[in-house]
């Protein structure tokens, strides 16, 4: 008999609400694995919490489903659990009702941060475009607006593909590219700040050599870009270097990011 802990059964509601953490959760799950009745109860409570979820439904952002479909294209599905399958994925297979859901919620997986970054980039790119649009609405036609249109065109291209990369000196980049439009949109988060005598410069690198693809503006709220680069050729790589302010016609320092496009 444990006297310090609450009676496990009384934690069923908190568990169903994901309101248990750490040892509270582990303790309850141990109990659950041995308690068929609790498992049935949790299943019923989850039906109730699903109604709470349904009641909170709000219009999802446009593109959410499209991005999930695109991501699914590149994501292998889990095989079904069979009687012979060791319960590795579902450590708590004993959980009636819980088992399915538990199995589907493993801990961190390596692809998650990349996917999350891609979604974040898409969201931030959209925000940046909204900013450009708002800006140009007030200032009539201008370079900004044209740039905004070009960026929007890449994002909306039917073959738009998102890639992410880590920058060796710090930060992460997200790229949306369209081979049809021969263009890409570059954004980055958390780039290391540079001295005023330096700048980040993008390169399109192909068999014909390295072409400057634009210099990055200074960060705003930790975000850099979006920057559009055109003239993309099949088989190109995108590179990033630190150059003297004003940029260089050819890279003069080591690549801090190289990404096959």
């Amino acid at each position: 008999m444990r006297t310090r802990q609450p009676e496990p059964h009384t934690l069923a509601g908190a568990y169903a609400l994901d309101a248990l953490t750490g040892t509270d959760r582990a303790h309850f799950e141990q109990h659950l694995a041995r308690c068929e009745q609790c498992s049935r109860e949790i299943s019923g409570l989850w039906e109730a919490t699903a109604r709470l979820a349904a009641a909170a439904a709000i219009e999802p952002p446009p593109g959410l489903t499209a991005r999930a479909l695109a991501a699914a294209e590149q994501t292998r599905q889990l095989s079904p659990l069979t009687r012979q399958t060791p319960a590795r994925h579902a450590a708590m297979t004993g959980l009636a009702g819980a088992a399915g859901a538990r199995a589907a919620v493993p801990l961190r997986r390596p692809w998650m941060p990349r996917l999350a970054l891609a979604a974040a980039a898409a969201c931030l790119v959209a925000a940046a475009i909204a900013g450009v649009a708002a800006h140009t609405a007030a200032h009539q036609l201008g370079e900004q607006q044209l740039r905004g249109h070009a960026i929007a065109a890449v994002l909306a291209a039917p073959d738009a593909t998102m890639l992410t990369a880590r920058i060796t000196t710090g930060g992460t980049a997200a790229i949306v590219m369209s081979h049809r439009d021969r263009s890409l949109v570059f954004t980055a988060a958390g780039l290391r700040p540079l001295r005023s005598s330096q700048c980040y410069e993008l390169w399109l690198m192909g068999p014909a050599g390295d072409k400057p693809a634009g210099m990055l503006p200074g960060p705003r709220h930790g975000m850099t870009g979006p920057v559009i680069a055109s003239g993309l050729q099949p088989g190109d790589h995108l590179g990033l270097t630190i150059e003297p302010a004003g940029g260089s016609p050819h890279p003069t320092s080591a690549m801090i990011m190289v990404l096959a496009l």
Partner: protein
Amino acid sequence: MRTGGSHLSPYGGAGAGEAPGADLAALLGEVARGDRDAFEAVCHHIAAPVFGTVRSVVRDRCQSEEVAQEVLLEVWRAASRFDADRGSAMAWVMVIAHRRAVDRVRSEQKSAARELRAASHAVAYDEVAEKAEANLDHERVRRCLGSLTELQREAVTLAYYGGYTYRQVAALLGVASGTVSTRMRDGLIRLRDCLGVKR
């Protein structure tokens, strides 16, 4: 039944004939076999409740979008693990969604600052309801939440819509944590019975 604009009301109306929930379970079976059209249909069913729930917990729109996308992809990935004998498809999806949302919030929670800052009932049901699309589920849930005691209702909604742990809820409400855990269970049981959830 691939399209039907019923995604804002995943449970459909009472006596609406074929239950959309059964559809969703069948669709998940097709998703498990790699059917992309079925996955798209599933997304149409679940995107609104998934995004609404994630948003209520995570708050930040960009982060909510990220988490919601992770949830949809997880549904694709893990569809073969859904077992209709053990609960409804929507419950399975929403457990994934809510867990991911609270995981996101808790991984970013560096200190107790958040619990104190949010001591207001910023996440109380009314606020969620305000943003929620008008739908049948909303009406029923509102009515049933109204049948709970105040403490039960606050405990349940702070945990679910606010993503707080039961110990945090206890701190917010100035009540013993044992009391909160009991009220959460009693409240959910009452909610379940009021909603006529089939098990």
